[in-house]
Structure formats: structure tokens, C-alpha cells
């Protein structure tokens, strides 16, 4: 099936599921690779375009987590493919659908052209990387004790006390430790951010929802999303490597991803 045929077939469908916006008008058509094996193609306007597939004008929904995960993988997969062909793309959040046919998409690209183009240029040759810095809890505790003698004293006192009294005091100790480790983590996060700053274009701290098994016994100090120029990935990796080699520390460094966290248009 040719690209035109794909479009023809989709004509009767009144929605377009958008994966991303790309710079350029190279041919792009992938059969059966979109959500639910949809045929994915490019709709161009001037020198930019939208990667999409035709679908009914209603959102994809499912109660089955696995189904949705599959969709999410498809979504990401198409964005990866598009990135291979066109370089950095503007990725869309999952389940973004334009009402209307290809003409509606062209019309919409036309309206948003300047903003989209500007953003594509800004993100050119950059990609998103995720960096998580872990540390052994004991390491952190040692640092805290070394810094704050009152906590160390309290610990010593507890060890000498009768058990029940010690229990209550222990609570106090734990609270103090918690506050102190929070403070030290904030401080460390700032230090690492400024350390990485010279290798990245932008850096953000992000929340992390799950931590892989291999890091489970460590404490997550900070998690960053970084926007990195292709040429700088090596030096960033180098700096992370030196932290990773420190005893008690571990780094998780993943990417490259499309710049999901750094597209600034927000709503188009």
C-alpha cells in the first residue's frame, strides 16, 4: 500500500491521532505500527509535518492496563521511528486526537506553524535523558552524623538507656534523622544539578514513581530530566561515571528520549 492509499483509506474516519510534529518532509509511512496496528503517515505543511494515523474522533480508552501499556509502547515506538528519520521531534502526550481529516490537520499546522517551527528549531539536535542518583542509606547516615553532633550524641544516649525510655527517644532520633536527611538530600541535589549544568541545556528535577530492583536497597537522592545536545552526551556520561564510581553511590542514566519534558508550547 502506498502512502496515498493509506490516506485514502483513512478518509472516512473523522479523527487524527497525533504522535508528534517533525521538521522536514521526507517520506514517512509505517504500516500496522500505530495504536491497534493503525497505518501511520505524515501530513505536511510547508517544511513541517504531523505524524499521525486516522481514527474515529474519540479517545482511546481501555480498562485493561496491558492494553493501554501496549498503546503507550506503540506511541513511543512511532515517536522513536520519527526521530530516526527527522531528528528531534515535538512529542505529543498520549491520546491527543484532532477532530477532522487531513485537511483539518494541515489547517491546524498552518495556524500553529510559527510556534511549532520555532520550538522544533530550539530543540534541534537535543534529546531528553533521565538521570537518577542513588546512595546507600548508611552512607547518608554517616554523613549526617558527621555533620550534626547533637544527632550523634542522641544516638549514643539511646544506646545507654533503659529499653522503654530508649524507645521514645528513638522516635525523636528518627525524626531528627529524617529532617536532616531531607536537608542533606536537597543540598546534594543542588550540588549535582550545578555539576551537570555545564553538560546540559536544561535540567529539571522530577518525581519518580518506581525504582528498579537493582537500586531498591539504595536511597534515591534526586532524579533529573536533562535536555542534552547530542555532542554533549559523552561528557555528561563521563561526569556521571565519576559519581557512579564513588563508593556507595549509583547512577541510573537512560535515554535518549524525545524531549517530552522540555516542549514549551504546552497547548496548541
Amino acid at each position: 500500500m502506498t502512502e496515498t492509499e493509506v490516506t485514502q483509506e483513512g478518509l472516512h474516519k473523522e479523527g487524527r491521532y497525533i504522535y508528534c510534529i517533525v521538521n522536514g518532509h521526507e517520506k514517512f509511512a509505517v504500516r500496522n505500527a500505530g495504536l491497534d496496528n493503525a497505518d501511520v503517515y505524515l501530513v505536511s505543511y510547508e517544511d513541517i509535518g504531523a505524524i499521525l494515523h486516522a481514527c474515529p474522533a474519540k479517545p482511546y480508552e481501555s480498562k485493561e492496563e496491558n492494553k493501554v501499556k501496549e498503546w503507550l509502547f506503540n506511541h513511543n515506538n512511532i515517536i522513536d521511528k520519527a526521530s530516526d528519520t527527522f531528528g528531534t521531534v515535538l512529542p505529543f502526550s498520549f491520546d491527543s486526537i484532532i477532530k477532522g481529516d487531513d485537511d483539518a490537520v494541515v489547517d491546524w499546522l498552518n495556524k500553529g506553524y510559527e510556534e511549532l517551527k520555532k520550538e522544533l528549531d530550539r530543540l534541534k539536535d537535543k534529546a531528553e535523558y533521565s538521570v537518577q542518583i542513588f546512595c546507600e542509606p548508611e552512607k547518608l547516615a554517616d554523613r549526617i552524623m558527621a555533620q550534626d553532633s547533637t544527632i550523634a550524641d542522641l544516638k549514643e544516649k539511646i544506646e545507654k538507656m533503659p529499653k522503654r525510655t530508649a524507645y521514645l527517644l528513638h522516635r525523636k532520633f528518627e525524626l531528627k534523622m529524617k529532617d536532616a536527611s531531607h536537608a542533606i538530600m536537597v543540598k546534594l541535589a543542588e550540588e549535582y544539578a550545578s555539576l551537570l549544568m555545564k553538560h546540559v541545556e536544561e535540567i529539571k528535577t522530577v518525581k519518580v514513581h518506581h525504582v528498579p530492583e537493582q537500586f531498591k536497597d539504595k536511597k534515591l537522592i534526586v532524579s533529573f530530566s536533562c535536555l542534552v545536545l547530542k555532542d554533549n552526551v559523552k561528557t555528561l556520561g563521563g561526569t556521571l561515571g565519576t559519581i557512579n564510581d564513588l563508593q556507595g553511590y549509583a547512577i541510573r542514566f537512560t535515554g535518549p528520549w524525545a524531549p517530552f519534558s522540555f516542549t514549551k508550547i504546552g497547548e496548541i
Partner: protein
Amino acid sequence: MEPSRGEYDINDFLDVLLDKGLVLNADLIISVAGIPLLGVNLRAAIAGMETMLEYGIMEAWDKSTREWYSEEFNAKMEVPLGENETVILRSFGSIWRSRGVISAWQLGFWYLTNNRLFLWRKEPAEMLFEVNLSKIEKIVLRKEVHFKKEREELYLQFDCGEIARIHISSSREFEKAIKIAVGRDLENELFIPSSPTYPNDDEEIVQEKKAWYLFTAKGILNETWKPGRIYLTKKRLFWVYQMDNQKMFEISFDKVIDLKISACNPVPSLKMGEKLLEVKYDGGCALFYAKTDELNEIESAMHCIILEQMCPGIVR
């Protein structure tokens, strides 16, 4: 080190896929981060509620739920009655509610049926209060001053010990009807607490602070924060309810097994992470809420008392 892109990494990145990236504007687009079903299931599974709310994903769901709710209720605006339930009496009235800082009369229509006594507000439709007749133990009609005028109010006490103070425009008629409908003799003497003052004990009060206390769910009441004062003596802690000045919680320090200030898990009306004082004792845990520095004061005073009890002379 080299960045990795394994399957697990992609899996983790799915969060970002849901939260970030461009979103469409609603106008020409049916947009769509905010789809009810998908949103709820998936994002709850993957991203967690917080992110959902942060990104407005729940709004659409919330809106559609509310629409559905109001449709449902417009359809059956009549009073919700059970099968075989018939209304005996109906009259305009109110109930005295004191929830947190707000104390007020809630208005509606009182219904007495063969099963229940309830206060129903039509618009917006809500059941303000309801109780099964079998739970009523005492009923007392008392004259009270309401906005400088005297009127008759009913006090009902239920099997859980809770007392409801209600006003019904035809209170005498209701009183009679309730007694008949219940079909049992109801006590008509009710201890309506007068107001003792504290400290009234011979023990010395070491500390006194304003604090909220979390009443556990009991009978017809949900968990509720109630305002009052916390008192510490050398031997015990007790808490006095502001409304009636009664001691509602009391614990001797030698029963306390743990004491801490913690950030709260979900409890009614408080934001996650607000500081609470947790007093654990064998068989339970009492929660108090106050200004953070006052909580700290209470906690450290208690620590001192307990420590002093166990190791006399340790606190100087």
C-alpha cells in the same frame, strides 16, 4: 558511562509519556488527556493520583461524574424512601451541626417514616441526617433560646451515645409521633452536659494548649476533628471538647507506648503531610492537631514527664 534504553527503561518512561509532551487545545480538537475511563484506570495505575490532579486529568472525569450525579438526582428528586417505607410526618426544621470551626443549623425537611427519622434537603439534594428508629434511646423536649427568642428543641440520644439537637416547627407533634413510631418506651431524661471548667482536679496542670482531636467513627458519625484543649498533668493527658467542656479523651502516661509528631496520612479535612501528634497506647492511637510549634511543645513536655517518671532526675 553510557545511557541505557532497555525495556525496563522504556517502561519507566511511560509515565513521562502520559504526563508530558504537547497537549491539544480543545477548540478544534476533541483533546484529550482528560478521558474519564482511560484516565482513571491507567493513570491511577501508572502515574498516581497526584500527577492526575496536577495535570488536570481528573477534571473532565470529575465534571462528567458530577453531571451524571446531578442527572441521576434530577430524575428522582423525590425523597429517597426504601421499599415499604411510608412517611408519617413531614415538617420543616433543622439540625445543629458543629464540624470543625463551623457550627450552624442545617436546614431541610424532617421526615418521620415507619423506619427512619431523617432530614432531607431538596436542592441540592442531600441527606443531611438520618437515623434508624431502632437506634433512638432517649428523647427530650427542651426550651432553648434561639436568636433571643425562646423555642422548643428536641434532643435525641442514640444507642452509640451521640446526642443530636434538632429543631422542628411542630416539635411536640413530632415528639409524640416519634415515640409512637419507635414503639418502645423512650427515656425522657437526658444528661445534657453543663460546662465544668478546667483545671478542676487537684492535679497540677503542667501544660494547656488548644488542639483538635480526631474522633473515631462511631455510630452514625464519621471520623471528625473536634476543637478543644489538651491538658497535661504529671500523670496523664486529657482532652476537653470545646462545645461542652467535657473530658472526651484521657490517658495515663504509663499507658503511653509511643509518642511522635508525624506527617499525616490521609485523615479527614487535613492536607497530606500536615503535622499531627500521635499518642499510641495499648489498643489504640489518639491523634491531635494544633499549630506545629504548639504540637512540638506538647510533645516535648510529654517526653519530659515520661522520662522523669521512668528515670527520676534525668530532666534538669
